[in-house]
């Protein structure tokens, strides 16, 4: 229990560190937070008035401290570009991305895990080569390109699924259990699932092969255990590594994919992040980076706890 609190406590400086780096990067990058707010031909005097109104005339350190003070009170500020509370923007985007992740992640886990185990069971054989090839294919193909191809095939050539957008899901509804909502999610979820599927397949293959080469497997075989029982032992021993990879992939997916979400006009975290960067929307960028970094930290924390649960040897470490 103490360990959990320690990890949680460590998450805070990590989040602050991330926000400082992000804040600094936004200002080092060319452009100005007010670029999108004021017309391109606004005069310097006009910009000065608007800068003052937004508080951008204060020194950077002061701006950062003001922001940090607000965050500690649970207020992520107001987006410059949309004039909506950042917490609302980030919350809605997270829910939208979660809708895709809820489809993409289980699919990636089941398919990737099955592929990895199958490949590891027959190393060097045709099945292994096919699976490894497919996994590499999934990792290497740009997922936004796959998205465009899927749209051309399944929305334009055969109009089975919508090309873009998200169904107007009612607030509070999960929007995944009826076809009219679900059909909007299928193509982006497939595009998103490609990379994690490939990575999980390759990691699972490596982990299972690693365990298979260990002495205890030889001992089990020498003791005359059947292959099914041996496989059970091997999979259980390979699980901690797979959990770590899955947790990382979950974190990546929750960060959204700027390109996939742009191709599908899906208003998730990737879209919002791209939007904030493009618009130099500092409060929005700060808010979303902070929340996403916290998701990464929490996901990894959960993964660590799960690993310990699955493999008690790790507790000693």
């Amino acid at each position, binding site marked *: 229990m103490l360990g959990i609190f320690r990890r949680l406590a460590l998450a805070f400086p990590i989040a602050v560190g991330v926000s400082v780096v992000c804040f600094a990067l936004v200002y080092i990058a*060319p*452009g*100005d937070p*007010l*670029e*999108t*707010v*004021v*017309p*391109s*031909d*606004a*005069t*310097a*005097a*006009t910009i000065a*008035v*608007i800068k003052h*109104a*937004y508080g951008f005339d204060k020194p950077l350190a002061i701006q950062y401290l003001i922001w940090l003070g607000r965050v500690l009170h649970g207020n992520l500020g107001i987006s*410059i*570009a*949309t*004039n*909506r509370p950042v917490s609302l*923007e980030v919350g*809605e985007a997270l829910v939208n991305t979660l809708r895709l992740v809820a489809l993409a992640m289980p699919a990636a886990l089941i398919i990737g895990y099955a592929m990895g185990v199958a490949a590891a069971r027959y190393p060097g054989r045709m099945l292994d080569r096919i699976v490894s090839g497919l996994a590499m294919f999934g990792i290497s193909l740009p997922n936004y390109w796959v998205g*465009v191809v899927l*749209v*051309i095939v399944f*929305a*334009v050539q*055969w*109009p*089975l*699924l*919508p*090309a*873009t*957008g*998200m169904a*107007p899901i009612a607030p509070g509804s999960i929007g995944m259990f009826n076809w*009219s909502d679900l*059909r909007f999610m299928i193509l982006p979820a497939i595009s998103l699932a490609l990379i994690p599927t490939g990575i999980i397949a390759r990691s699972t293959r490596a982990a299972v092969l690693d365990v298979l080469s260990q002495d205890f497997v030889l001992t089990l075989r020498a003791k005359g255990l059947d292959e099914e029982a041996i496989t059970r032992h091997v999979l259980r021993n390979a699980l901690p590594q797979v959990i770590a990879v899955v947790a990382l992939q979950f974190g990546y997916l929750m960060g959204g994919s700027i390109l996939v979400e*742009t*191709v*599908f*006009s899906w*208003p998730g975290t990737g*879209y*919002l992040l791209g*939007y904030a960067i*493009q*618009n*130099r929307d500092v409060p929005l960028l700060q808010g979303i980076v902070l929340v996403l970094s916290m998701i990464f930290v929490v996901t990894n924390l959960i993964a660590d706890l799960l690993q310990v649960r699955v493999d008690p040897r790790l507790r000693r470490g």
Partner: protein
Amino acid sequence: MKSDSFSSNHRWLRTLLLLSVAVSAADVSVAHAQGVLKIGMTASDLPITTGNPDQGFEGYRFVGYNLYDSLVEWDLSSATKPSVLVPGLATSWHVDPNDNKRWIFNLRQGVKWDDGCPFVASDVVWNLAHLTDPKSAQYYAAEAAQASSYLTNYASSEAIDDHTVAITTKRVDSLFPYEISYILLVSPCRAKALNYNWQDFANHPSGTGPYLFSREIPHQEMDLVPNKNYWNKARIPKQDKVELFPMPDPATRTAALLSGQVNWIEAPDPDSARRLKAAGMQIITNTYPHNWDYQLNFVKSPFTDIRVRQAANYAINRADMKALLDGMMIEGYSTVPPSTPYYGHPVEYKFDPAKATALLKQAGCYPCNVVFGISSSGSGQMQSLSMNELVKEQLDAVGFNVKLDTMDWNQLLAVGRNGVDKYPNLSAINISHQSQDPFDALIRLVSTSQWAPHGSNWGHYSNKDADALITQIYGEFDAQKRTALLAKLNELMNVQAMQIFVAYDVNPRALSPNVHGFVQAQSWFQDITSVTISP
């Protein structure tokens, strides 16, 4: 066994087929919903609804001028003649005979805000304070920012009576009606009822425009419905509803149109346009005041020499550029298209590579090293990279040695805004611009008073004759005489070869075959009220 398997497969196939048909039917019913105009915009987000919108002029086109009106508006009824100013919420306007800095606007009577309050002169005064006076309760920084460039010359306003308002400018300004045409008026009643909470106002906007706000799903969709009580009966919308979708990716817009998710898309790229045409879509283009050119550095050589500027213009093979864009441009020889009333008879630098090389040699700049600041993409930048590559190729062929400094769009905007002093190593920048009114088309590019960062004269061009002409233009209240002066200014700008003129955009958009009645005006703004959608 084989038979069973076949039968099972057959059933499976039949089910799949039925499912496909059912899904397709559902899609079709969505696509062809009676009278719903579904527009895929190029904007990365939905425009704000609190008055003057963001998302550039696309925001004005689909949200601003649909929810709101301005005192003076643009005539969008003709595809064959340039758009001109027409009465909006003001039925007429004139400059005060006793004070040429004071404009009198006679307001339209009987107009109501869609919240039911009557539209009166004090509302105009209230709106101008909302945009310019940080001390007023209704001041809103985000809106002030949007409107800032159009109110630089605004000094004060007063309601003379309920239906007459006087607006005073800081200096004599015969072009003020153009500037006020960009100022959209919002309902003071609604703003007060919402305690000036502009976030709430965004969700419950109230104006006098031809459409009413129906709903917005943030970042996804905005729905507008006809305002059946619109004061201009000829422009009461003929559709049931307009749905707006932000779709910044051109491939996404194309797919959405082809799949029937939308029935109208903005700016298909030339490659997509071919495909859309083949699929039976209407590709509509027209001349419009959108200039794709290069602003030059007049502080540091080589463009300080007029011969180098002329050489660059002679080197451009605009026909090749047009072929590159599959015909989706008009060859550009001036800052305004030839249909503009003040185009005049400017010298046109037709493609003449031999002359270009000779001029460079005369100027002693051969090879002539230049650096162009360009963006990889950006609002209104057309096919930025391929167009810039072709320009480089053409200029290099006559003796230039062009280096393209490619940057992010926001960075290029900052370069444009800050002016040549901060970026002396750039010989030119490529920021396309709108040339819809005389100030934007000509004055801001040449006036010494508009030197960046105070204005848009990026390269710090200065010419006493041009400045004198501009003073005359601002002081000339006779429209015909003013047009003649503006034509003279345009001709002077061409004689000076003060830009590298390349292309005018043609504002392409693709419409489903069942979309009817659209007249594409020669303007950045468009009237969609006349559009109908057949089943």
